[in-house]
């Protein structure tokens, strides 16, 4: 496995990403490369505290704050709702999440929120703490939408606002959704969310709406993880996959049988076979397209994952292990 790269090599390779982004044919134009660079975020990237601004130095040595790269770098090739029903041709996207490596850094949650212009409590990717039974060891469980093969949410939508594409992605067309919330009650994985009231960000008409970006969202409609098709069209990993510091999230195409987490690229079938990949709640028959690798040979203790906001920590108070830890005073 190629994990043990020295930091220096890692840094050096950071900015000349031509090697990684090879799917598009060998266009070595400077624009494309710099475009690729800006969207690549590494764990040691400069801190962006307010979310939109980055600190940079001018050539005169003055520090200023500039806008971070814009959210949707895709306006030139905007995919309108009608066309968004056709998927990216000849692809079958799949995600693999390695539960053995997740330490609840929540970078995936934050990157996704930034990328889709979400508020603090709106989480397309949720990280839950699951303890299957009293004796079992709990594990951090990142949960995006599973983009099931036989999605119960699509079946029950009365207007066809949510649909399954040929590239496996299940999207929502906010211009068709009537807000009946049947899909939310129908999803057994609680992957969907509703916009209950008006928010100012809905009025921002600068970016034309596309179901592939879900920006701007709309009041009274449903939204959820979308596997970032706008990034995929640019040959990039979704926000969550590229921001995970532990390389937990693998993403790829089942047709070519390759998945990558940004650093490692492996055969999908081999990864599932070797590591015993499974799908959550398989017996429900939804046939998810997100596979999980069991939480064995954990790289660090669970307590490391509690270095988070108090409010987030409170969410896990019902997990038996957490209650034990609290009793012992460890958290």
């Amino acid at each position, binding site marked *: 496995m190629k994990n043990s790269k020295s930091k220096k090599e890692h840094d050096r*390779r950071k900015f000349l990403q031509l090697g990684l982004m090879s799917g598009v044919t060998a266009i070595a134009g400077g624009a494309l490369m*710099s475009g690729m660079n*800006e969207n690549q975020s590494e764990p040691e990237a400069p801190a962006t505290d307010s979310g939109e601004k980055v600190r*940079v130095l001018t050539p005169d*040595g003055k520090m200023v704050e500039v806008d971070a790269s814009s959210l949707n770098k895709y306006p030139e090739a905007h995919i309108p709702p009608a066309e968004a029903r056709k998927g990216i041709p000849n692809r079958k996207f799949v995600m693999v999440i390695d539960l053995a490596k997740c330490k609840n850094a929540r970078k995936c949650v934050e990157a996704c929120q930034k990328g889709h212009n979400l508020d603090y409590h709106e989480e397309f990717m949720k990280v839950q703490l699951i303890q299957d039974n009293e004796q079992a060891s709990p594990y951090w469980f990142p949960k995006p939408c599973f983009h099931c093969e036989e999605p119960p949410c699509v079946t029950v939508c009365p207007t066809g606002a949510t649909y399954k594409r040929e590239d496996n992605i299940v999207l929502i067309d906010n211009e068709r959704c009537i807000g009946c919330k049947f899909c939310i009650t129908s999803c057994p994985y609680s992957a969907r969310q509703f916009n209950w009231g008006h928010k100012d960000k809905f009025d921002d008409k600068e970016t034309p709406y596309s179901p592939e970006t879900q920006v701007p969202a709309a009041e009274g409609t449903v939204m959820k993880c979308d596997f970032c098709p706008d990034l995929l069209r640019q040959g990039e990993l979704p926000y969550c996959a590229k921001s995970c510091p532990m390389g937990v999230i693998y993403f790829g195409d089942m047709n070519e049988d*390759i998945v990558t987490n940004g650093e490692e690229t492996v055969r999908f079938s081999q990864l599932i076979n070797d590591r015993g990949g499974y799908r959550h709640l398989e017996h429900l028959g939804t046939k998810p397209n997100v596979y999980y690798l069991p939480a064995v040979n954990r790289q660090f203790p669970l307590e490391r994952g509690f270095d988070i906001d108090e409010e987030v920590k409170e969410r896990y108070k019902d997990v038996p292990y957490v209650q034990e830890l609290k009793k012992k005073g460890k958290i």
Partner: protein
Amino acid sequence: MKHHVKNNRFPFRQLIILLLILQYGNVGYGQEEEFDLGAYRVRFSVQTTKNPDQTRTFGVEYYVQNKKDRKDRIPVKDAEIIFYNSTENEEVKLGSASTDVEGVAELNVPDSQKYMTDEEGLINVEARFEGSADLKNQTESVTFKDLFLKLELEEIDSVKTVTVRAFTLDSLQNEIPEDDIDVIVSVGGMLSRMPIEEETTDEGSFEIEFPDDIRGDKDGNFKVFAFVDDSDDFGTVLASEDSDWGVFDDISKPPKNELWTEAAPIWMYVVLTILLVGVWANYVYTLIKLRSISKST
């Protein structure tokens, strides 16, 4: 000229004032935080990559790193970096590029560029930043030899084999094989390259057995890559070759007439039509009969 009488007493007052100025002086500069460039160490590095289409990319990464907190990095943006191909005697400007918001500047040089070499045949490229009052001049250079990587895909005795040759060219355009180069052979995917095997050249080449279950795209095509990862002598080199060895089996037919597709199962249409026609026909019949009642005397 009048000389001031030197005061033999220790200049306490001046010292205190000086210390105060040093302590609080920079507040007057109007920065939102107390940004002290002195607390940061400058990092300026240059790299070269040879691309599959024989063009070359030179990149500079320019940022400052907090001496105390190494995770705190601030990139330098809009800094103009000029690249020169220099020898002892002369230099040729290759081009210039500005650093972006992540402090990275890249220059693409077409394959037609003839580089000047030194006596040993090495190419020296320098990246320069003309500094200002607060940011010093920066110069870094990278010295490399132009390595050629060639991939040959052949099926030998029904075994898919990939031969990788690494060589440089001397002044007479003769191929000189290069030994001991670590090359990673990989397959191109949509988002990244998947490594197959890593080998070292022996007498300028090596052979690997290529797996025969690589899928490729819908036509069974894929690209095979040879990648030299940031070697001291040659920089980063990437070469590719197209292949049709993909064993992609038929794309499964998209589902139709299921519960979750646009078109519903046929029996649903049938049942619904029967029910609705039955019921509404009766309504119409009822209304007709009512009309007949109202028409009758």
